[in-house]
């Protein structure tokens, strides 16, 4: 199964068209392996992006250097997935019993 150790989800608040263009640039960088859960599209819509652990530093550097406002909405993606998995296992056992 795919694992997401150390991966985080960033929420980026887009304030103008220039910032959308900058994020579109980020979207095109295949080597960062970003997964845009919500793409940069228009003002007033935050962008959510899953950032793999190996790309955290360069992405943070990019966002800070471009003056983009962001926060971390999911600190530890794998922890959330583990919790979901545990709940599903527990539920299966309950059904069996």
């Amino acid at each position, binding site marked *: 199964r795919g694992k997401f150790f150390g991966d985080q989800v960033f929420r980026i608040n887009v304030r103008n068209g220039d910032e959308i263009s900058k994020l579109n640039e980020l979207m095109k960088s295949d080597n960062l392996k970003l997964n845009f859960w919500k793409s940069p599209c228009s003002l007033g819509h935050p962008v*959510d992006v899953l950032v793999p652990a190996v790309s955290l530093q360069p992405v943070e550097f990019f966002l800070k250097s471009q003056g983009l406002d962001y926060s971390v909405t999911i600190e530890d993606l794998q922890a959330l997935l583990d919790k979901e998995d545990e709940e599903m296992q527990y539920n299966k056992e309950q059904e069996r019993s």
Partner: protein
Amino acid sequence: SNNFNYGAYHSLEAIYQEMDSIAGDFPDLASRVKIGHSFENRPMYVLKFSTGKGSQRPAIWLNAGIHSREWISQATAMWTARKIVSDYGKDPAITSILEKMDIFLLPVANPDGYVHTHTENRLWRKTRSLHPGSPCIGVDPNRNWNASFAGKGASGNPCSEVYHGPHANSEVEVKSVVDFIQQHGDFKCFIDLHSYSQLLMYPYAYTAKEAPDADELDEVARRAAEALASLSGTQYRVGSSATTVYQASGSSVDWAYDNGIKYAFTFELRDTGHYGFLLPADQIIPTAEETWLGLKTIMEHVRDHLY
């Protein structure tokens, strides 16, 4: 009547078994109908709710799980299925809807993708079809419909999350739904359930141009969002897809609208971002309960405005 937990996430097999159980428990109201199969040859099942005893009636299509990682969508659909059979004969609204119309509910519109999210990659969105000459797998099944296909807001790159596919209806999952709806010929309403953003939208997605019925659709959607919010205050934004989120071509709801299904809506269920596609299971029932109020408002409007 059984031990299926509607407040938990389930495998495809468990969902299909539960659909069978619902049909078995309410044979005069519900039946499980196979409408096709997926790329990896998994069956595609809908639950048909009908009091028409075989006669053809106008119908409502409820579509869930087209993007496989949006698990709250499939879970909400299953809760909704049980709600329909439980409330028929008790709740005057759903009773009167079913006296006049049939409801078809597709809880898992992308079965291969759903299985993939359980076994390989929880965050998979697309189908699992293969493309000669590309190492990348899958098509975005909500860019694959014949509605401004391959236009703005979709990608021709098979590695993209919004790859539109080689041609409209290239995905057998999409084609199965299209064929079924066209053969039936009397669908009046098509509602697609997604997550997450808390939005209720109507056509168009492929253009910012207003749909001919935009005023009516907007009014219905606003009432539905109010009804939804009345349960626990969940706030939805309402508008056309292109003006509310982004322009996207080849979407299911635009196809439905352009093919004469006037009441075409897209829900983006909870939440607003803290969990994204990983909405905790304890929010399934609250989400489904509030969504039901929105769905019912739309379905009542359709019942009262058959065309």
